[in-house]
């Protein structure tokens, strides 16, 4: 059993997805419990796998029993393990937390919804765990196809946003496939480790850098990196709230992970930084992404859209950190995958709770929310502090690593952008807090209507949010341990010089 964790991680949600979709026609009531079982098993196996990796080092798994370049191999190191755990555990928490909104929004299509949900988890987990370039493409399409359908379930403008996402996403996927094709024609292999060992002989070939560029652009579209981010705000803000809090935190982070994996495991650090020399332009683009994301977030009047632009600027943090070309920057980027996933899901779950009670997310509608939903708003404030980067929340530490890395690399523009975005985040969150805390003071007289009374979200939605907010602080406190045990082993030696 122990040896099979990497496979079980994938097949437990996969098999249950099929069972759920059949159950939708036989006994509808069983769909949700089975989905919880599938997602929970996946989360449990990922925790076990991560523990195994921490104890015994990297885990390899051969699917179909064929050795690596011929068959498909899984390769799990600590970075994989961490991202796997984040993805499957957060997906599980979200599944529990959004039960009521799903039941309210799609009463007839619950079975289809949970099937797509589980398949989306399969896609993300598979992308993270795989060691094969083409397998990654197939799983990318599983995750994308399910996310198009899930987003379009939102009604209203959602189908249009989803179709635009589909066009952009397909261009991204095809560019990635082209890049893999260029690698395959030059090396004849699809396995990441095998390609990495064959590439040094042909680093000078133009096909290799073209392959890298196309992979990067493809992944960049999927992660909504700055000039390619246009699909994100519409897609995520028109999605149903249960879907927004699933896709927004996970999809983009996994794509950042894929980018880092391509940089350090397929094309080596030597190639990406010394031969290609696109580190500086990438950092400048990230700087622009951060500044533009923060500025556009200021212009938004809707809470969810504001979060979407915050995501765009956070992607800039991670991409910029990864391309700084030193160990601190890379550490910051990897750490920020974990932190940002947590922060984004808390934000979207808080927004989901608010929407559940007041049926709207315009900032002007939030008046007096502190009195009506104190717990939700407390969690919201904690998350906001983490995004701003106030110690001891985890957001502070990743930002610290990023700024250290930028100073080491002499990228003062990037430092400036990070500080600017923190400042903007202060304004953004205090604007929301001001409206929701003080907003009703002048109208308070004679407003003793029942709507002003306490109307907190149900406990099942509140407890996951509380756990996540506590997690933000706990991870902040244990940052040192995480960096030493999880991230340091995977930082390539070439970066640490």
């Amino acid at each position, binding site marked *: 059993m122990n040896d099979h964790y990497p496979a079980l991680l994938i097949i437990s949600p996969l098999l249950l997805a099929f069972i759920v979709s059949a159950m939708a026609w036989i006994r509808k009531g069983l769909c949700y419990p089975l989905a919880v079982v599938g997602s929970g098993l996946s989360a449990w196996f990922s925790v076990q796998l991560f523990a195994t990796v921490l104890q015994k080092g990297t885990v390899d798994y051969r699917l179909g029993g064929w050795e690596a370049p011929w068959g498909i191999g899984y390769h799990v190191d600590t970075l994989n393990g961490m991202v796997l755990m984040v993805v499957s555990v957060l997906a599980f928490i979200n599944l529990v937390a959004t039960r009521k909104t799903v039941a309210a929004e799609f009463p007839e299509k619950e079975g289809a919804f949970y099937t797509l949900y589980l398949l989306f988890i399969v896609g993300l987990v598979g992308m993270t765990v795989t060691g094969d370039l*083409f397998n990654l493409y*197939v799983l990318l399409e599983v995750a994308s196809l399910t996310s198009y359908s899930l987003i379009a379930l939102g009604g209203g403008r959602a189908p249009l946003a989803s179709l635009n996402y589909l066009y952009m996403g*397909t*261009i991204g996927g*095809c560019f990635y496939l082209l890049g893999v094709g260029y690698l395959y024609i030059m090396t004849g292999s*699809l396995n990441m480790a095998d390609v990495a060992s064959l590439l040094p002989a042909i680093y000078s070939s133009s096909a290799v850098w073209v392959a890298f560029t196309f992979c990067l652009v493809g992944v960049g579209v999927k992660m909504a990196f700055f000039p390619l981010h246009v699909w994100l705000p519409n897609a995520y803000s028109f999605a149903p709230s249960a879907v927004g809090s699933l896709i927004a935190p996970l999809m983009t982070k996994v794509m950042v992970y894929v980018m880092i994996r391509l940089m350090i495991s397929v094309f080596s650090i030597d190639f990406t930084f010394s031969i290609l020399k696109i580190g500086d332009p990438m950092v400048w683009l990230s700087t622009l992404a951060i500044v533009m994301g923060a500025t556009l977030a200021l212009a938004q009047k809707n809470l969810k859209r504001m979060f979407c632009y915050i995501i765009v600027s956070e992607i800039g943090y991670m991409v910029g950190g990864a391309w700084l070309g030193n160990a601190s920057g890379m550490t910051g980027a990897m750490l920020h995958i974990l932190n940002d996933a947590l922060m984004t899901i808390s934000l979207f779950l808080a927004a989901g709770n608010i929407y559940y009670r007041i049926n709207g997310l315009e900032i002007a509608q939030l008046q007096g929310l502190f009195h009506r939903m104190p717990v939700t708003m407390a969690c919201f404030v904690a998350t906001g502090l983490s995004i701003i980067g106030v110690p001891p929340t985890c957001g502070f530490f990743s930002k610290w690593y990023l700024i250290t890395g930028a100073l080491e690399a002499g990228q003062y523009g990037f430092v400036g952008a990070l500080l600017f975005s923190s400042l903007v985040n202060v304004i953004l969150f205090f604007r929301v807090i001001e409206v929701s805390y003080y907003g009703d003071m002048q109208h308070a007289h004679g407003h003793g209507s029942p709507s002003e009374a306490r109307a907190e979200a149900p406990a099942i939605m509140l407890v996951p949010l509380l756990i996540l907010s506590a997690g933000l602080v706990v991870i902040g406190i244990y940052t040192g341990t995480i960096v030493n045990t999880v991230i340091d082993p995977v930082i390539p030696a070439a970066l640490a010089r």
Partner: protein
Amino acid sequence: MSDLIPIIVAKYNYWLYIVLMMIGLYAMIAKNNLIKKLVGMNIFQTSIILFYVSMGCKRGGAGIPIIQHGPDAGHHVIDLANYVNPLPHVLMLTAIVVSVSTFGVAVALAIRIYQRYKTLEEDEILARLRSK
């Protein structure tokens, strides 16, 4: 001139796949009709499939990748030059399936959009959204 022909013959397939890819990508970006974009997307995807299949093929009498075997169940030496490379074919079977799946979902989305806006022209939809 005579030495150009071998170069052209050696590479033209790759060049023409790029032309096809450019047609598809241009249609995806510049066309206004949502279904036309979809056609562009399909052309784009098939051009990539063409690229992969092209890199699998071998000149000089290589045949389809099905091992010919006699009554002795094929325990003879297999001459690689007789068979084309099967791996790109396998990958592209998957890619075709992905492309038809994406096509199906996209068409479903287009029908949903038409139900709501009664048009498939992107600028008309945007104008309608703005006027609200």
